[in-house]
């Protein structure tokens, strides 16, 4: 079974982002970039499926600038077999990304597509579900467990009140939640080997996809800062403040 994994290059999760002084966006100059943490989990899941003998080939794809090749090489070092970059320096919406991924799905014909549930920059949580609509594949979002059996996949999903288990016909889309697995680190020999693995580059035009967006960001501002309050000396003082000053209990 062929598995396609989509990964996104984003600001590293340890970086505290700053809003630009002119409110046009977030300052990304000289900031460390990494693979989106949820995408790392997606890659790991595909590699584990291959180790179990379920997946036969893992193709990793990213939509982004030339530098997104770094994240694709990381995925190759973790165990993906080959990579595809759909190169664009434009900001693309989740719908445009889903359309580009649909074009890749049409070319590659995977049985399973695994994505992160959301990217930690735009926090959209849309791409996997949109790809589901465009391909008419079934979808198992926010997955914490994935079990492939025959032509079906059983997915345990993290939902608001607990867990939900669904059975999906293949081909299917899976989006990873945090507890799906703990991603491994790439070993040095694997990082070296990854440099020789194939990486193809396409443009959105070559795939016949328009990335025109209907959403415009007018401004980006820093959130309101919440000031520190006071330190109380005892539990009794705390209860008194909550009852008589804040009046919340």
């Amino acid at each position, binding site marked *: 079974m062929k598995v396609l994994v989509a990964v996104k290059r984003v*600001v590293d999760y340890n970086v*505290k*982002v700053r*809003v630009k002084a002119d409110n046009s966006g*977030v300052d990304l100059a000289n900031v460390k970039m990494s693979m989106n943490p949820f995408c790392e989990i997606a890659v790991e899941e595909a590699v584990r499926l291959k180790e179990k003998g379920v997946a036969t080939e893992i193709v990793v794809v990213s939509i982004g600038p030339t530098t997104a090749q770094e994240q694709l090489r990381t995925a190759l070092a973790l165990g993906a077999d080959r990579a595809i970059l759909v190169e664009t320096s434009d900001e693309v919406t*989740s*719908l445009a990304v*889903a359309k580009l991924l649909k074009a890749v799905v049409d070319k590659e014909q995977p049985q399973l597509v695994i994505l992160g549930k959301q990217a*930690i920059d735009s*926090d*959209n*949580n*849309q791409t996997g*579900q*949109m*790809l*589901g*609509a*465009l391909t008419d594949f*079934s*979808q198992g*979002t*926010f997955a*914490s467990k994935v079990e492939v059996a025959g032509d079906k996949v059983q997915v345990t999903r*993290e*939902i*608001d*009140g*607990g*867990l*939900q*288990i*669904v*059975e*999906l*016909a293949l081909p299917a889309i899976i989006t990873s939640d945090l*507890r799906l697995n703990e991603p491994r680190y790439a070993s040095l020999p694997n990082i070296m080997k990854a440099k020789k693995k194939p990486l193809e580059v396409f443009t959105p035009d070559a795939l016949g996809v328009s990335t025109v967006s*209907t*959403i*415009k*960001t*007018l*401004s*980006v*501002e*820093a*959130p309101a800062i*919440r000031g*520190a*309050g*006071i*330190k*109380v000396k*005892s539990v*009794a003082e*705390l*209860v008194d403040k*909550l009852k008589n000053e804040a009046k*919340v*209990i």
Partner: protein
Amino acid sequence: MTILVIAENTNLALAPATLNTLAAAQKIGGDIHLLVAGESVGAVAEAAAKIAGVSKVLVADNAAYAHQLPENVTLLIAQLVQEQGYSHVLASATSNGKNILPRVAAKLDVDQISEIIAVESADTFKRPIYAGNAIATVQSTASVKVITVRATGFDPVAAEGGSAAIEALEAANDAGISSFVGEELASSDRPELTAAKIVVSGGRGMQNGDNFKHLYALADKLGAAVGASRAAVDAGFVPNDMQVGQTGKIVAPQLYIAVGISGAIQHLAGMKDSKVIVAINKDEDAPIFQVADYGLVADLFEAIPELEKLV
């Protein structure tokens, strides 16, 4: 302008987040239709018709929608939007809304705007990005605006006072590519995290899952829900559905009591809009104190039992 709001429901009851989503719809302005999809949802539809400001309740009662499978519900919503020409489609940014609505948007070939916290006008909205470290104002020129609404950004509309007409929909869409196997829902008499007026949360400082019993006792005295930081969830103390933060639930109660929580950015993203924040931590330099209205530097295993006695 007519807005379609997707009612979040369990087949038996309407989820409270629907009332917040309706508040966002009212800010946009126009007629509001509320779609109740599910199986045997008669009681939900009747409750929905009483909500203030709803002009029509559309009921799709069919086994195909019983478990809100996105492959089926998407077909229903997309068809409805195409036939009726709605200007906006809104759903709550719950795990269910997030699962279904982007699929609807792509079916309609439009971009979606996720988790809005404010309505500036009928086409302009504010939403947090980068885990709430920046707030973007975005404008949509899409023919139909497909939007998920973060409940904490909007005060709920009144659940009573309306008398909307109820209209049954015939459409039965079963894509036949997915099925419900089962669910494991946490059963608790405590209020739901995102709807609770008071939330008591524990972090890594709780040391183990058993120690959460101190928080449960305090919560029961206060009528509060119990949450946890990602650190406590990752350490295996409590299940993930209790997680408050960027990667868990977003809450904004009247009172949030953070116990043994250091205050990582990812946690603050989930609770910083609470009206009053209390932090109890033995580390006086913990970042949580920078956002707390009332901080208490103390050993939580002494402070929590004492607090339980005094409230």
